[in-house]
């Protein structure tokens, strides 16, 4: 079908841009609006678009559900792990100052780490939730 072709090519063109935009949002969160949460959602949106256009089976091949599931769990562990790391370095929980020699660098590093945790979890969660709903529909029909 011609419309499907347009859709497929359109998606193929769009998805890289969406991914780049997500990266921008992730790392530009310090300066402009954005951050881990928004970036995670956008990453997930790119993937969901792929799944919608190319079908869930193909999407599964690109990114198996297990990986998504692990992402969701690991993100939380990154965040909480950062906190525990600061404890071991002698600070209070989530006290990023101890992460580097200068407090500002520690703060930046800490914020980056926790944002990484957030983006991982949010991406995993959004895709997994989408997967749960879409996968259910497929089996029903």
């Amino acid at each position, binding site marked *: 079908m011609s419309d499907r072709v347009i859709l497929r090519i359109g998606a193929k063109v769009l998805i890289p841009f969406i991914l780049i935009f997500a990266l921008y949002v992730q790392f530009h969160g310090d300066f402009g609006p954005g951050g881990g949460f928004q970036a995670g959602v956008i990453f997930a949106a790119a993937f969901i678009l792929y799944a919608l256009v190319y079908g869930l089976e193909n999407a599964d091949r690109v990114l198996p559900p297990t990986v998504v599931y692990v992402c969701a769990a690991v993100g939380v562990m990154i965040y*909480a792990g950062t*906190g525990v790391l600061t*404890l071991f370095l002698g*600070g*209070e*929980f989530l*006290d990023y100052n101890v992460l580097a020699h200068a407090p500002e660098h520690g703060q930046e590093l800490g914020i980056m780490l926790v944002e990484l945790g957030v983006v991982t979890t949010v991406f995993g969660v959004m895709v997994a939730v989408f997967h749960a709903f879409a996968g259910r529909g497929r089996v029903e029909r």
Partner: protein
Amino acid sequence: MSANLPVLLVVVPLLCAPLAALTRRPRPAWGVAMLAAGWAFVVSILLLSRVLAQGTISYHIGDWAPPWGIEYRIDEVNAFVVLIVSGIAAVVTPYARRSVEREIDATRIPLFYTAYVLCMAGLLGISVTGDVFNVFVFLEISSLSAYALIAQGPDRRALTASYQYLIMGSIGATFIVIGIGLMYVMTGTLNMADLAQRLPMVDANRTIPVAFAFLAVGISLKLALFPLHLWLPNAYTYAPSAVTAFIASTATKVAVYMLLRFFFTIFGAAFAFDVMHLDRVLMPLAIIAIVTMSLSAIYQVNVKRLLAYSSIAQIGYMILGISLASVTGLTAGILHLFNHALMKGGLFLAVGAVMYRTGSVRLRAMEGLGREMPWTMAAFVLAGLSLIGVPLTVGFVSKWYLVLAGLEKGWWPVAAVVLVGSLLAAIYIWKVVEVAYFRERSREEPVREAPLALLLPMWILVLANYYFGMHADLTVGVAHRAAQVLMGVAQ
């Protein structure tokens, strides 16, 4: 490291939750849950002893001094509540292994324990935090996981029960957020201690009473105070046995703690009772809850539902004690938090064992069980005696203080209500006992006693009922100090 215990109390379970999800097999997931529960229990004992020895602990997360950062603030009140939550978790988790394997699809068990640990971590988080918005965040962690857990019940009505709870719980949470927002707009702070200082400066206007009202309604929804209790019976009845035992003895307790914290620490008893006249609302509702819900319990044919209605009545006792707004009344209320967790935990665990063996919790399924499952039913009877309030049990201790508090204020009807409530409790417990011991079983095949893995946790709780009933000075001492802390803020 020991200085970091307040935050580790919550963070270790929070880290255990994704770990349990990653194990993907039932046994290791259960092991992780055990680890979390055991850790929380040990830490909560350490924290309580430290609070009793050295007074309030304040922990600044991220080393940002409050009110800029989030503070964990532990005094006698929440140290006690944390002990209840983690203690019940430490007993229910070993029990859960067998019970959950029977009631839940094996592929879901790892996620089940993930949700279970999250629920526990959420409840602990609510209890120790000193920041009102943080309360909301952890409230949602515990509530969302509780919805998911309840929906795992074997009956399809578990789904509707869970949905109903989700709607009511979300309304409650949103009301709490509105209340927090209104407090925030008047004071500019979210830290509890800071709020307590700043609210008296602005409480002469209309916004703060409205914030108070929204918080009251929101928290009442969460703790299933009488007219807002509709979610509770179904949720308790259709949830898996271990979940019922855990949630029944912790979730509403933490909600009662929120009530105490918001109204006594933040608003102050003087504002709550002299200005807002909270007692004029709470006391009638508590009395109605005790009488009508005990009556409803008598007519139930499902034992879990019977106990659920009894729980609403028992929450009435706690609220009754709190609404007396005196140190003795609060002591009774806080004491009953602990004591009710012990007895309802024991009862629900016993019923869970019946479910394990007979597959049903209807009264008819219990016919003749007194002979077939002697240990389980003996545990039920002993915990039931405690629920009624027979001397030597914890139930007696808390009712004793409740009556004392009532008489202290010259309100003898309180004593009468307690007596009526106990009589009604005796009737509904007797109903079960009669069926179990004095009716011949109509089932064809005999049932065997529950396995040791279920009996042991059950009996630990039941014996605790008697241990703390006879050595009441331990719990009464802590509850009394907690009550003084709460009232002391008002002075």
